[in-house]
């Protein structure tokens, strides 16, 4: 029934040379981006794009690689953001990067807890667990003032801003480099996880967990690992979303809509691919801008904002259906960027 994932064949030498050149160019471009793009682009498009990619990456490990459907990505982002806030407020000695890591670990632990049902519940029944997380944390962080330090608007913001080790990361450039650094690190971590035994276990479980158990994959442990690692990344993405992009966040910043947005990113980008998260996030952040621009030019402001929002929503829905019909493996496949073109991978074999 399910195909075996063969390791990609060794690549010819000249393609490696080309790749290295391409990678060097990409790195150069990424580092120089703040000096090429306007401040508006960095603040309003590039930084959120990077953070959404990171969140997509986190969810993709769980849903795309380990095959566990989650509708609670927003909840784990929320936990990361609120944990960072609490740590910065109550443990002022902890430098920001460490606070982020600890917040990620807290989100990971929460993810693990909500992943426990996955060992007994399968398929659609599992969404109840992540949805429970979504609604529980929305309630928790709003209900108890301790979590937002009794702030009258129930929002969280870092009083000392984004500074650590004597560095200031509050300007657009600082935020950009901070985000870029974290995203790059976590992408590397994910790539290594996927290529190692952990990733192979996850994919075996995604393809058919009973079969995986039969051949000796530790299903229970691997599923929990997937929940923990995914939530760790989502937690850090949430903290960045709150403090590096929004500045001040509330429960609404991580509502159910956010969870769906992250899910759409990985559907459109490509489930079970690392670069899919980036492509999907680019698509999701650029589509509204493109539609805005288009409507500005077509109707020059005759269409009111509410209608525009609904049209966007409808177009979004059509695109999702279209993607699932035409290219279930997402943009990653569509752009012909897939690594192992011979080794076809299946998303969710029945």
């Amino acid at each position: 029934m399910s195909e075996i994932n063969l390791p990609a064949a060794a690549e010819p030498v000249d393609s490696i040379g080309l790749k290295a050149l391409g990678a060097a160019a990409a790195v150069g471009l990424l580092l120089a981006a703040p000096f090429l793009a306007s401040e508006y682009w960095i603040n309003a498009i590039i930084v959120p794009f990077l953070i959404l990619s990171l969140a997509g990456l986190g969810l993709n490990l769980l849903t795309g690689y380990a095959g566990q459907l989650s509708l609670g990505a927003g909840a784990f982002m929320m936990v990361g953001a609120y944990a960072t806030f609490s740590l910065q407020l109550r443990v002022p000695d902890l430098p920001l990067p460490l606070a982020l890591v600890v917040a990620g670990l807290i989100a990971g632990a929460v993810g693990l807890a909500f992943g426990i049902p996955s060992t007994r519940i399968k398929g659609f029944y599992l969404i109840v667990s992540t949805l429970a997380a979504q609604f529980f944390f929305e309630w928790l962080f709003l209900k108890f003032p301790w979590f937002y330090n009794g702030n009258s608007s129930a929002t969280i913001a870092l009083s000392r801003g984004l500074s650590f080790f004597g560095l200031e990361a509050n300007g657009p450039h600082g935020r950009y480099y901070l985000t870029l650094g974290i995203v790059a690190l976590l992408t590397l971590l994910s790539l290594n996880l996927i290529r190692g035994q952990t990733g192979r276990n996850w994919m075996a479980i995604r393809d058919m967990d009973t079969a995986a158990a039969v051949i000796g994959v530790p299903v229970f442990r691997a599923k929990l690992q997937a929940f923990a690692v995914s939530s760790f990344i989502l937690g850090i993405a949430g903290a960045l979303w709150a403090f590096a992009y929004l500045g001040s966040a509330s429960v609404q910043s991580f509502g159910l809509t956010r969870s769906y947005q992250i899910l759409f990113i990985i559907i459109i980008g490509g489930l079970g691919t690392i670069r899919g998260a980036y492509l999907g996030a680019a698509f999701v952040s650029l589509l509204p801008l493109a539609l805005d621009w288009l409507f500005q030019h077509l109707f020059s402001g005759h269409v009111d904002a509410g209608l525009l929002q609904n049209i966007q929503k409808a177009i979004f829905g059509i695109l999702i259906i279209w993607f699932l019909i035409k290219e279930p493996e997402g943009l990653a496949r569509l752009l012909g960027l897939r690594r192992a073109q011979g080794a076809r991978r299946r998303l969710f074999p029945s």
Partner: protein
Amino acid sequence: MNMFLETLLGGLLAGTMYSLVAIGFVLIYKASGVFNYAQGSLLLFAALTFVALTDQGVPALGAIVITIALLVLTAIAIEKLLLRPLTNRSPMTLFMATLGLSYLVEGVAQGIMGSQVRALDLGIEDLPIFVGDIMISQFDLIAAGVALAIVVVLSLLFNRTRIGIQLRGVADDTRAALSLGIDINRIWQIVWAVAGLVGLVAGLLWGARQGVQFSLSLVVLKALPVLIIGGFTSIPGAIVGGLIVGAGESLAETYIGPYLGGGITPWFAYALALVFLFIRPAGLFGERQIERV
């Protein structure tokens, strides 16, 4: 004791409203194996169409007929443009497609008919009735009666009509049904249309309760724990699940809520569903999956 009974009864009656939404899900899941997330949006679409038409001065009966016609057309379009191209894809892909469908339906419905809150008057007054010392809402009682009527009609449809038998055949074994010459595409259209009708009824009742607006589509989130508890494949399960969730929610809000600062209804049903799932992983009445390698 009276307060306990009153809370329990109120909860049970509210639960039948959840069941109504859940039944639409079960119908589609049974016949086409699709976990239809868009049921909430279809419900919103139905209620919104009805209210928009009556606001335009169309008499209620005419509005109902037009709405039903639109729902049938929608069902046919969904079958042709969504289900057919996605035949034989994994259930997960189909689920995600219905997520997309819910965006499309919501966007179109609100784009055409506006996103303001519209009042819906069904002519049922929400007067309290007293049975002994216990107060019951008349509206809830009627809603429960409607739910009951729908279940009776559906079971007659399933057991006594030719179409119903075909539907059960498809639900039981799609391949065997196909080989017997059952037109599965038509069955899908019928099921989606029937689910749309159930959605219309649920939408009108919920709409009369809380006004017809976007948040109406969120009742789908109320119906999920109901489905999980009852099992995806069972209409009696949807009813029992609805009653459990309704009663559980209102009892928890009254008796546990105060200790937690209140407002626990949004997540309580999910916690309850998780507890049930740990005991029965396929819901109370769901079909247990047998896995083969």
